[in-house]
């Protein structure tokens, strides 16, 4: 190859390299956060079917809807997003910036007036409660509320889903169970 052709080749290469730089569109960015349409959120009807009180008539708790798990539990991005929502939706104003409560109750302790299971906390945020807790079902889509629940779960005081059938009866993991109470527990 002679010099001229080589130089022409280099020039073409340079030209080819320069042009895209001057007018390129940025490529679509990738995302590390799963798009919400692919996250398996519990169905709204399932969460809504969880009763606030104990089902009348049934000798033992048969509402397995209590065992609904939070798909965002332990998800660090979701917990971080939940913390952001906790600040932005003014939850911190009533429940304090460290979650220990003020006008609203302490969210870090193990006392839950309306239940401490993830789906019960979801319903509390979704529906509100009579003594001043607003209902967020219109303002926040379910995805955002589950992220808030994940943040509250990260505070350490909520009830674990694996303990769901005993949550109502005041049982704690590690409790002894008297034989008579064991018998009653079987349906």
């Amino acid at each position, binding site marked *: 190859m002679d010099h001229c052709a080589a130089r022409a080749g280099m*020039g073409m290469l340079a030209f080819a390299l*320069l042009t895209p730089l001057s007018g390129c569109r940025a490529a679509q960015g990738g995302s590390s*956060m799963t798009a919400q349409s692919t996250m398996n959120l519990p169905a709204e009807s399932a969460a809504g079917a969880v009763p606030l009180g104990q089902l009348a008539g049934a000798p033992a708790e048969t509402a397995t809807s209590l065992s609904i798990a939070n798909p965002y539990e332990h998800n660090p991005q979701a917990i971080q*997003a939940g913390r952001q929502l906790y600040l932005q939706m003014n939850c911190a104003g009533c429940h304090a910036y460290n979650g220990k409560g003020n006008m609203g109750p302490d969210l870090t302790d193990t006392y839950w007036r309306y239940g401490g299971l993830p789906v019960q906390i979801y319903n509390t945020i979704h529906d509100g409660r009579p003594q001043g807790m607003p209902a967020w079902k219109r*303002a926040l*889509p379910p995805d955002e509320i589950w992220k808030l629940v994940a943040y509250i779960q990260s505070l350490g005081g909520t009830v674990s889903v694996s303990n769901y059938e005993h949550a109502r009866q005041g049982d704690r993991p590690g409790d002894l169970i008297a034989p008579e109470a064991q018998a009653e527990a079987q349906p």
Partner: protein
Amino acid sequence: MRPRIAMLCCGLLAAPAATWAETPMSYQRTFGPAVDPVTRLAWGLGTVSLVVIVVIGVLLLGSLLRRRDAADGDSGQLAVRHDGGGMAWIYVGSGISLVVLTGCMVWTLIVTAAVARPPSPPLLTVQVTASQWWWGLRYQGAQPDRTFTTANEIHIPVGQPIRFELASADVVHSFWIPQLAGKMDVIPGQTNVLWLQANKPGTYRGQCAAYCGVQHAHMAIFLVAESAQDFAAWQNHQLAETPMPVSDSDRRGEEVFQGHCAVCHTIRGTGSAGHVGPDLTHLMTRGTIAAGLLPNTPGTLAAWIANPGSLKPGTHMPAQVLSGSELKAVTSYLTTLN
């Protein structure tokens, strides 16, 4: 051969010129005293560097390709001639370099001083709050009640220095409108100050220039420089509150807005004052939405509200659960926000 080379050279030169029109971010042509000296300096230093390269290149080539005397081919003799002119090259060369470099240094210092401070005290301060992935703007008024908030589209009067106070709501961003100013990082926990001035009316595009997350590339900012009267009119318009909606469909749309959107967005005049997302009081005066990602039309608005994550994956705005009629109502209400 020659025509080919000529074409090649033309192509090399024409490419940038042809694409200037499509490169609003090009910092090779600037329009304000905050950067014009820098641009000139850049071209100047670039030219000096090119000349130096050419001169050295020519000298090097010359020395490489120079025919040697047959007598120098004898082994054992040094290739360099000992004649009195050897050191002259060094003296002259160093002398020229010294003068040129000192000149460049002085020029650089002058330029740095020139862009450090605005030529006259700025009459307007805009507080910019960078969030993932949009820009909040608060215009400081001469009196407190002339202070208002908007987003993503800055308007300034032409020929006036404007001061920007840059704060971050979350992570490190960088404020960059290349044709008017250099980059200034926006760092959480501190307020950086920038000034700029636009000498020519028009729309200038800017961009976030520090990686700030998954949608960093879609965090544009537009700056509109206009005449003083136009700016005053725009300012007064932005200060005004939205009147309460009158028609049934607008009222329905406002209801949907209050229920689903007011926790994050503000429309002054309706009682909502959410600070999480951009202020929407005069949404339709802006040319784009989603920080420059989409043009501001009813169709794109509806698509954006229906599912922001599909257009800007990772955005913090959630997809609200809206029925078709709710979406239509709120979109149509938003298009009335002039």
